[in-house]
């Protein structure tokens, strides 16, 4: 396998916390490899540890065991080479949209002149369709627009990877679909590698090249990986009309249901 095929490599990743009754093992033996430019969705039941995995890749949580290698270098702590989009946009309410994006841009591109840094931040906001909202504060923006700023803030830094933790979980269905389009547009244009946590089956099928399905915790790991063969660029219509769509959807839901209600023999074991 070439370097590009193993752009992100999670190897035997584990996370456990000390708990009153022994040790709580959240994730154990988590293996995942992501190609450069690939869009991978991590799907699983809530509380299974998918956000923990993302947080470890982001460097916000220290793995208990195993390692993460991104573009040939082991990850140690958070850094601007991984843009993170949180579930809540976490914008700073006292700054305009532009200032929020500039916060990271100023730090990463500190050697560039101010005008150029403003341009980088503004371009990122244009890219997510916020032409008229540069000088608005988060309080004046809708939830969907705020999350657009969150996305702009993440990819304005030209990161190697985009990490998204259920970024559309708090939005209504229509806004969510709109933002999925924005995200896929940005991902495609920037040629960025993306890892996204979600529990929405349709969202995963629309966005991802591959869907990694996680087993239910404790000691969650990747249970199976589903290739999504839909051609790109995708339109929602084409995806829904694709002959394999319902079969893929079935297998995803089947896996999740099995995790929720394990068959008797597996339960006994």
């Amino acid at each position, binding site marked *: 396998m070439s370097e590009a095929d193993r752009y992100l490599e999670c190897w035997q990743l584990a996370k456990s916390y000390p708990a009153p009754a022994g040790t709580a093992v959240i994730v154990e033996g988590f293996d995942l490899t992501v190609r450069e430019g690939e869009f991978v969705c991590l799907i699983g039941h809530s509380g299974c540890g998918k956000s923990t995995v993302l947080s470890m890749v*982001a*460097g*916000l949580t220290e793995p208990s065991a195993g390692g993460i290698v991104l573009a040939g270098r082991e990850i140690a*702590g*958070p*850094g*601007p080479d*991984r*843009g*993170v989009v*949180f579930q*809540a*946009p*976490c*914008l*700073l*309410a*006292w*700054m305009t949209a532009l200032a929020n994006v500039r*916060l*990271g841009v*100023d*730090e*990463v591109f500190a050697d560039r002149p101010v005008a150029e840094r403003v341009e980088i931040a503004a371009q990122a906001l244009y890219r997510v369709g916020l032409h008229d909202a540069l000088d608005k*504060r*988060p*309080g*004046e*923006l809708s939830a969907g627009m*705020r999350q657009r700023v969150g996305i702009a803030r993440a990819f304005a*830094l030209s990161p190697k990877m985009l990490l998204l933790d259920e970024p559309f979980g708090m939005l209504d269905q229509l806004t969510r679909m709109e933002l999925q389009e924005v995200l896929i547009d940005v991902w495609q244009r920037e040629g960025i590698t993306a890892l996204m946590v979600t529990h929405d089956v349709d969202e995963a099928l629309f966005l991802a090249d591959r869907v990694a399905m996680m087993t239910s915790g404790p000691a969650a790991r990747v249970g199976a990986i589903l290739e999504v063969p839909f051609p790109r660029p995708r339109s929602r219509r084409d995806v829904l009309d694709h002959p394999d769509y319902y079969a893929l959807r079935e297998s995803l839901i089947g896996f999740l249901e099995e995790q929720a209600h394990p068959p008797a023999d597996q339960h006994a074991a």
Partner: protein
Amino acid sequence: MMDVALESTASEAVVAAPPAAPSALRERARSVTRAVARTVLPPLLGLAVFLAAWSLVAASIETSIGAVPGPRAVWDAAGALVEEHARERTKAVEFEARQAERKEAFLREQPGEPWIERQYAGKPTYLDQIVTSLKTVFAGFVLASLVAVPLGILCGSIPLVQSALGPFIQIFRPVSPLAWLPIVMILVSALYTPEEAWFEKSFVSSAITVALCSLWPALINTSLGVASVDRDHLNVARVLRLGWWTKVTKIIVPSALPLIFTGLRLSLGVGWMVLIAAEMLSQNPGLGKFVWDMFQNGSSQTLSMILVAVFTIGFIGCLLDRAMVALERLVTYGGAGAR
């Protein structure tokens, strides 16, 4: 409550009578009168009851220095103080004019000789004393803020500092200004010996005592505000790899600002209260000294003068608090929930 009920029935009766009038306007007029009734009447009623009770009680108490003054006597005393101020001002102006005349004459007769300027030595009036008090409390408050806010930020962001300073905060916070003041006065006498004193020693002691006592609310609230900054916001800072300074100025301080201001507001309140006690003992020529001097001279005017001071102190304290609230509104962001 009563007034509001009466008011609404009255206006309903009006509505019923002329059905042709534009109802929107009437509705508006009605809501305005109702709002006025709700906001203006109760305080007025309270004031009336208070003044009546005061007059009644005052008339029935006889002290060693005469009757307790009623509202009227206190009002007259306040007027007398203002008049006295005006008189002193005219005297000062006249003095300056005479001095200028003499200086001119002196320079005409003995050109080249050094002229010695004389300060007008009239006693400070009540209004001067208010100004002194305001200066003192302001100096103490600024001093306290300069120490408390940075220290609070350190406390809130570094747990080690928090646990190191915690016990001291707990122990020193409840100490009364009356205990600090003698120590401060002795230390100021020993250490504050500049060639050319910009400030009186009594002023410095009072200001430092105010600072020592008003430090704590600002310190505690700042550290609480900093410690309770949204975890997500700190994660953003970590992901963006913000430097310590950027993190403090761009994320921590702005999100802790409402609590920092709450602390500063409490500090200013405490400082103003402490100031009066500090001035009484350190003889700083402010409101505290005024109260003390009035108490010492024990004339028939004493009680009404002190009551004027009480109202002044309360009124200014209230104004200072309002000013801090206004400042907070100005400085902190709109507060729209923008997570």
